[in-house]
Each structure stands twice: as structure tokens, then as C-alpha cells.
């Protein structure tokens, strides 16, 4: 028998060392995988093991200034199927298509799809969800979540906006304050084995949803309701296309009411109102004859907030701006005398006054009362293009108001270099350019409130669900656009308009009300369509509320002073006492 020799032993040691080296290298490789790449693989593994069902967060409510809930949540259910756990597919398909009122093929497609979890239907009534749950079908999950609900239906629909299937804001304040309202959705995480069977002993891990915060807005339920009633009433009386009413606080820009009738039902925003059917479409079955893009266009028209998304020619209400600029620049005083022959020649153009015979000799104050075009043409021309545009800028008319609603339209104004004397003359009495109603209301507010620019807005504060204050919104207010004196002069001049001028239909016994009427013809002029409007504020010496009413395409009499001023009078008659503003002479 041979003995081992030294080289045998040496080679055995060599092999051992080789193996040891290999094991050490593998150990290093392993350490690399388990430390450096651990996170990478662990995350991938987790995705593999976890089945995730999301739980919608309750969206924050929207409250009016009095605490009325304008947008709330309702419990609804989401029905899903888990392919690997279904035991009796036919029964599942039959039950779900019956309870959810879905076509059988739709349900079958969901049930037979090999996926970890498949959503069959969302926003199912709680009762239906409970019924399905009580059927105890293996592989069918009914999760509760929330759906937006608007207790007052169509109230302030274009302001509040509505939400989509995932509770995300689609239009209005729901979009603007999405971040505050939406909250954070939660998750139900379950661990499963490779067959998709949930592991019993690991249980469900829930990440609770964080509900959104409540938004308190400046809107006042009562004023809004009254504004909508008044708007519907005048729309019906005058068979107008639409009526907008905006009520705001001229001192701080808070909006109390904003309506553009017809309003739509926030709980059913995808049903087209007959008023919004495009002309020439059968009105009988609203919405049913429209498809695809045409339907979407019509819906978008219905959802538009005319006060901020659309511009119009303001007409005579804009004379407030021309007068303020003229007084501020010192080119005119209320006592200045003017003469109106019924027209005014600018270059070679004869621009007519609305009163064919002319107003004769009148002071500037009387010119405002009469809404006399030649007077304002004269003031505009005295200012000149440069100064007029400087004031236009100074008053903030070239910028957006910054209102907290999406889609605010910008002012459509002539380019300065294209403006000649004729254009300047038309601008002076509010024609040939367009602004939004909210821009007009905000600018007039700023003129009569003592001369400081306000930002019109709804958002007041954000509160936790228990009412605790989380955030108080501050607005960029206070920029002086007009001297205190001119502002006071303007208040007095505009009070005279209501006291005995073109705005006398807005007069209320015992209240000091200022205002200005307007009647403008829409483009093309040949269509003979008019926009009648009135902007008023009260009390005239210390304005606390400002109202703007715009009537689109009224039939019959279309003068703003005749049809729009009474609407604001009706509003003021009710809301001045409501806001605690006493009549003159009333003892506190």
C-alpha cells in the first residue's frame, strides 16, 4: 500500500485553499446581493406578494360662511373580483350583472380576466353593496368608500364644481382647492402566496385614508339662493339666454353669491340641460341625440361660469372707469359743463348718443346720470390715449383678478399702437373691448371702496373636520389704484345715478344706493342681440355690498336701467337687512 507523499498533501491543501477562496468570493457576492441590492429585490418581492386595494379618502367638505354644507360625502361601494379566489364564476357573473345592472359580457370579461384584482364597478349604492356582500360569493370584494354629494343640487354649480369617478375635482372650487380637499387615499394590503390566496395569519395591513380638509368659502347660502331665484325669474320674464348675478363685498373681495343660470345639477353633471342643446338639435330628448365631441362641447358650455370664463362688452357700466380716470387726472370736474347734440364727431366718424335728440347742455354729474356717450367721449379724448391706457393699467384691468376659480378669462383690449381717436372714443363708453363680469365687479369695488384694489375670492379658511382652523387665506389686497377723494366723488356721482338718473329703478326708500346701468349690443351688431346690465352698491357712502346683474339676450325691452336695475333692487331689498345694514334714520 502506497503512502502519501508531500506533494499529495500539498495538492490537497491547494484544493482546500482553492475551495476556501471560492467560498469567500461567493460570500462577498452574497453580501453584495443582500446589502447593496437588497432594497431593489425586496421592493420587487413586496410588489409580488402584496395585493393592494385602495380606499378612497373622504373628501373635505365645502361650507358656506354660515356653516351650511354645500358639498358633502356619501358612502358608496366599489365592487371588485379576485380571479384566483372565485369558486363559482357563473354565479358571480350572474349575481353581479343583475345587482350592478351591467351587461353580462362586461362582467364576464372582468371575472375571467386573469389579474390579481379587477374593479367591476365603482360608486355602487351602499344598499346594493350590502346585498352583494351578503351573497357571500368567494372572490368578490365589496369595499366602502366615499362619493361626492351636493345637498343643494344645482346651487352654485358653476362655482362649486363637481368631482369625477376617483373623487378628483373636475371644475370649479373642487379643482382649485383639490390639494386641500382631496386627502390621501388609504390602502388595504394583503399578502398572498403564489396562487394568489391571501395568507390568513398575516392579516390585512391597512393604511388608513387621511380625509381631506374642509374648505370654508365666503358664499352665503341665503344670498346665493335668492340670487338664483332672482336670476331665474328675470330669465323667464325676459326669455333671456342666461342671467348672471354676482354679489360681493367691495371692501375685501369676498363673494357672497355668484350665479349663472341655468345652473346644472351637481349630482348629475353629465346630463345636458335642454337650454344648452346646440341650436337645431331636437330638444325633446336632451343629450340623447348628442354623441362624443358634440356632447362634450355642449357639456363644457353648460359647465362654464359666465362670470369668469367669458368676456363681454361692458358698455355703459364701464363709464365708471372713464369717469374715475378723468376725475383722478383732473381733466374734468363734476361741475364741468358739456353739450350733447345727440352725437359727437370724432375725426370723420359720427358717434351717436343713445338719446337721439341729445341731452342738451349738462354738467358732468348729469352726464353720468344720463349715461351720455358724448360726455364720456369728451373725457376720454381729454385724457388721451397714453393716459387712458395708464389708468387702464393702474386700475388692474389688464391683469386677471386672481379669483380662486380655474379658467379666468383675460381682458381683450386693443393693442395700444392700434388705438386712434375713434377707438379711444368707443372705449370711453365701454365698447370695442371685452372684460369678464368679475373683472368689472372687482374694479368698480376697488373704485368705490376708497380706492384700493381687491381680489375677488371665495376661499376663506381651511378647517380640520373637527372645525379647527388650519389655514386662513390672505389675499393680495390694498394696492391703491385711486385717491380717497376721487373714490368719494365717484360714490356721490353714482348715488345720483340711482337717485334720479338712469338707475332710478334700483332705488330703495331709506337706503343710499349707487350704481350704473348698461345696455350693450353683442357682436355681430346686425343680430340685434343685447346684454343688459346693472352694477350697484350700498350704502353709497360706505359700500358694504356690491351687486352686478347681467342679462344675456333679453326679449322685448332690453334697457339695463329697466330690466337689470330692478333685479339688483330686489336683491338689495332682501340682503341689506339680512347683512345688518340699517335704513337711514333707523335707530340702532
Amino acid at each position, binding site marked *: *500500500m*502506497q*503512502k*502519501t*507523499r508531500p*506533494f*499529495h*498533501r500539498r*495538492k*490537497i*491543501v491547494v*484544493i*482546500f485553499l482553492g*475551495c*476556501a477562496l*471560492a*467560498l469567500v468570493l*461567493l*460570500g462577498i*457576492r*452574497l*453580501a453584495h*446581493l*443582500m*446589502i447593496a*441590492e*437588497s*432594497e*431593489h*429585490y*425586496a421592493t*420587487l*418581492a*413586496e410588489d*409580488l*406578494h402584496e395585493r393592494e386595494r385602495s380606499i378612497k379618502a373622504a373628501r373635505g367638505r365645502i361650507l358656506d360662511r354660515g356653516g351650511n354644507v354645500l358639498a358633502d360625502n356619501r358612502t358608496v361601494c366599489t365592487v371588485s373580483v379576485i380571479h384566483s379566489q372565485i369558486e363559482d364564476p357563473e354565479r358571480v357573473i350572474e349575481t353581479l350583472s343583475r345587482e350592478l345592472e351591467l351587461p353580462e359580457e362586461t362582467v364576464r370579461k372582468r371575472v375571467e380576466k386573469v389579474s390579481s384584482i379587477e374593479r367591476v364597478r365603482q360608486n355602487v349604492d351602499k344598499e346594493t353593496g350590502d346585498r352583494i356582500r351578503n351573497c357571500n360569493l368567494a372572490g368578490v370584494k365589496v369595499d366602502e368608500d366615499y362619493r361626492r354629494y351636493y345637498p343643494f343640487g344645482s346651487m352654485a354649480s358653476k362655482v362649486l364644481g363637481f368631482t369625477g369617478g376617483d373623487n378628483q375635482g373636475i371644475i370649479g372650487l373642487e379643482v382649485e382647492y383639490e390639494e386641500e380637499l382631496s386627502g390621501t387615499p388609504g390602502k388595504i394590503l394583503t*399578502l398572498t*402566496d*403564489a*396562487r394568489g390566496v391571501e*395568507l390568513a395569519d398575516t392579516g390585512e395591513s391597512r393604511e388608513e385614508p387621511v380625509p381631506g380638509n374642509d374648505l370654508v368659502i365666503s358664499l352665503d347660502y341665503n344670498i346665493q339662493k335668492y340670487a338664483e331665484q332672482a336670476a331665474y325669474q328675470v330669465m323667464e320674464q325676459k326669455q333671456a339666454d342666461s342671467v348672471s348675478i354676482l354679489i360681493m363685498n367691495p371692501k375685501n373681495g369676498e363673494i357672497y353669491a355668484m350665479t349663472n343660470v341655468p345652473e346644472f345639477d351637481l349630482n348629475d353633471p353629465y346630463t345636458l340641460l335642454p337650454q344648452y342643446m346646440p341650436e337645431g338639435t331636437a330638444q325633446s330628448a336632451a343629450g340623447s341625440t348628442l354623441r362624443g365631441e358634440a356632447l362634450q362641447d355642449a357639456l363644457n358650455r353648460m359647465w362654464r361660469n359666465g362670470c369668469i370664463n367669458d368676456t363681454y362688452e361692458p358698455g355703459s357700466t364701464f363709464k365708471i372707469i372713464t369717469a374715475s380716470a378723468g376725475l383722478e387726472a383732473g381733466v374734468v370736474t363734476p361741475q364741468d359743463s358739456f353739450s350733447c347734440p345727440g352725437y359727437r364727431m370724432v375725426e370723420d366718424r359720427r358717434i351717436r348718443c343713445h338719446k337721439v335728440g341729445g341731452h342738451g347742455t349738462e354738467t358732468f354729474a348729469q352726464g353720468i346720470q344720463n349715461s351720455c356717450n358724448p360726455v364720456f367721449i369728451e373725457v376720454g379724448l381729454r385724457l388721451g390715449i397714453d393716459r387712458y391706457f395708464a389708468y387702464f393699467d393702474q386700475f388692474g384691468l389688464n391683469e386677471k383678478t386672481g379669483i380662486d376659480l380655474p379658467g379666468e378669462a383675460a381682458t381683450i383690449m386693443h393693442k395700444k399702437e392700434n388705438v386712434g381717436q375713434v377707438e379711444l372714443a368707443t372705449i370711453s363708453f365701454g365698447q370695442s373691448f371685452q372684460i369678464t363680469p368679475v373683472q368689472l365687479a372687482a374694479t368698480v369695488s376697488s373704485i368705490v371702496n376708497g380706492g384700493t384694489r381687491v381680489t375677488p375670492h371665495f376661499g376663506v379658511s381651511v378647517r380640520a373636520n373637527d372645525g379647527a382652523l388650519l389655514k386662513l387665506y390672505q389675499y393680495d389686497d390694498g394696492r391703491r389704484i385711486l385717491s380717497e377723494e376721487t373714490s368719494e366723488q365717484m360714490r356721490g356721482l353714482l348715488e345720483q345715478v340711482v337717485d334720479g338718473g338712469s338707475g332710478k329703478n334700483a332705488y330703495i326708500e331709506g337706503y343710499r344706493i349707487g350704481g350704473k346701468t348698461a345696455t350693450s349690443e353683442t357682436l355681430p351688431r346686425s343680430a340685434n342681440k343685447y346684454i343688459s346690465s346693472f352694477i350697484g352698491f350700498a350704502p353709497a357712502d360706505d359700500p358694504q355690498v356690491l351687486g352686478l346683474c347681467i342679462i344675456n339676450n333679453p326679449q322685448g325691452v332690453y334697457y339695463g336701467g329697466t330690466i337689470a336695475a330692478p333685479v339688483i333692487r330686489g336683491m338689495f331689498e332682501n340682503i341689506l337687512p339680512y347683512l345688518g345694514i340699517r335704513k337711514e334714520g333707523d335707530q340702532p
Partner: protein
Amino acid sequence: MRTKQGKPDGFLLAAVLFLTVFGMVVLYSMSAYNGRVRFGDSAYYFKKQLFALALGLAAMYGVSCMDYHVLQKLSVPAYLLSLVLSGAVLLFGDAYNGSRRWLSIGPLSFQPAEYAKPAVILLLAGFVSRVDRKKSGRMIAAVMLMVLPIVGLVGTNNLSTAVIILGIAVLMIFISNPRYLPFLWIVLAGSGFLGIFLSLEAYRLERLAIWRNPELYEKGFQTVQGLYAIGSGGLFGRGLGNSLQKLGFVPEAQNDMIFSVICEELGLFGALLLMLLFLLLIWRFMVIATHAPDLFGSLIAAGIMGHIAIQVILNVAVVTNTIPNTGITLPFVSYGGTSVLFLLSEMGLALSVSRYSRT
């Protein structure tokens, strides 16, 4: 012949016993899910393995008490038996997962390939220790010719085991020959053949592509799931029994990929400790081999060292995707009755050798 007869190596025995107990605990943890799902019995695999373990421990005790020199005469018949069994399995074997690897005798089934490993170790140890040293040049060729039949038979349906057998043979010839250079040529030639072998068929190259980017291929599933398990472990693991990957994600978690789930449950520390334990085991084989009184005993211990080392290294390398995937079990831990029976018999052999030593 000056030999000293003594007690078997206590260190080796302790390490082997510890490994078997550890292996059984881990195996139960890894196989409980598959056992429950397939056979309705969490302990299904555990019980079968326990039976093989009991047989194996008895065999280990028996062999360790023998004088290993007796086996020198039996080495050739034992090898012939392995050829017969490996041939029989090709004709009468049971297929499982598509491979004919099992011979059934009544309720028992047996994997001849596992038996072939110790048979080759004995054959080569017996042959080399008898051959005249001066003819060592021709010996390399002779040994290769001797193992070729078994490599061919086993390789027809179990390529990995054939590679292991070939590896053991190369290591044992390496020890028996004082030169180094020829072995470098053998290794280089082997690599060259492997390269040609792989590039001949597109599907073999695909295996390499899967190795580079296992995520991109369906066949890389097992590798990817193993990596997920390893990555999920981190430093200290999820804790024994808490693996998620064994729940059907890693296919056959109790078999080849068991090391990945050990990483998941016991973390980097547990995995490194297990590797250290194997290193200790290999170290003891080296000590026994270098202290053996004669070349036969030394080669037996060295062959066993080679066997364990090759399987551990290749298994860990496959699981960590260091080399392309091939089915190699982890000794003492992976499920497999025949494997544990013959591994423990080999341990008995090593213990038997350890009882004798040079003075």
C-alpha cells in the same frame, strides 16, 4: 506500516450532526407550504427526509466502525454495481419532473446517480493508490477512460451530477500527480470544449442570455425568484418560518433553491454562518486527508472533500446567479433521501479514515 489507531474525528462528527439537524429544521420550514398544498401534510417532505436521515445515520455509524482498507477490494465491484444501476434507471426508471432518475423498489425509491459519486471516489482511490507512480502519465488517460462510462450513463438524464462526478475525478487525479501544468491544460481544454459545446446549439446560448438578464426571460423565473428571496433577507432575515418566497414563488423551495430561502429567513448572517460551517467541514476533510496513513485513505478523504466542496460552491453560485442555472442540491439541506443517505455514508467513510493517522 506505522499507523496509529484512534478515535474518529470528533470535530467532523459534531459538524455533520449539527448540519443534519440544521438541515432538517430548515427543510421543514421550506417544505411545509409545498407539502400542505400538494399532499395536505405540512410534514410530508420532512417525514420522508427523516426516514432517509435515520437510515443514513445508521449507515454512517456502520461505515465509520469499518476498517476502510476492506473497501479497497470492493471498489471495483461497487463501481460496476453503480454502472448497472445507472443503466437500469434509463430502462426502468421513474420519471419525475420530466427526468428518469429514480428506481423504485417497493415503496422505496432510489436515485442511482447519488450512489455513483461515492462509488467513483472509491474506485479512483483504490486504482490510483495501487498504480506505479512512474506510469503516472498514462494514468490520467486510464482514469478518464474508467469514469467515462458512468459519466455518460448519468449524464444522459442528469448532466449536473455527471459534471460533479467528472469534477471529483479531475481533483483526485490532480492530487495523485506531482505536476501542475498538465492540469492547467486540462482546465483550458475543458473550457474550450464547453465553449464549443454551448455555441453549437442556440438553446444553450439562450441559457447564457438568461444568466445575464434573468428578468427578461420566462425561463429565468426560478433565478429571479431566488434573487428576490435573497434580497428580501437583508442582514438578519425575516426569521425562521417567515419566508414569503417559499409560498410557491420560488418553485420547489425545498430543492435546489433552498439556499435562497435560507437567505430570506435567516438573513446574510445566517447564510454566511452556513457557508462557514461548510468551510469547516471541508477543512476537516483536508486535515483527515493530509493525516491519513496511506494514499488510499488520503484519496478517499480528498474525494469526499471535493464532492462536498463542488456541490456547495456550485449550488451557492447558481442561487446567487453567479453562474448559469443548473440543478445542483445543497448537501445535507436540500430535500432528497438518496442524497442524504449516501452523503452520511461518505461521512462515515471519512470518519473511518480519521481513526487512523500517520505517526
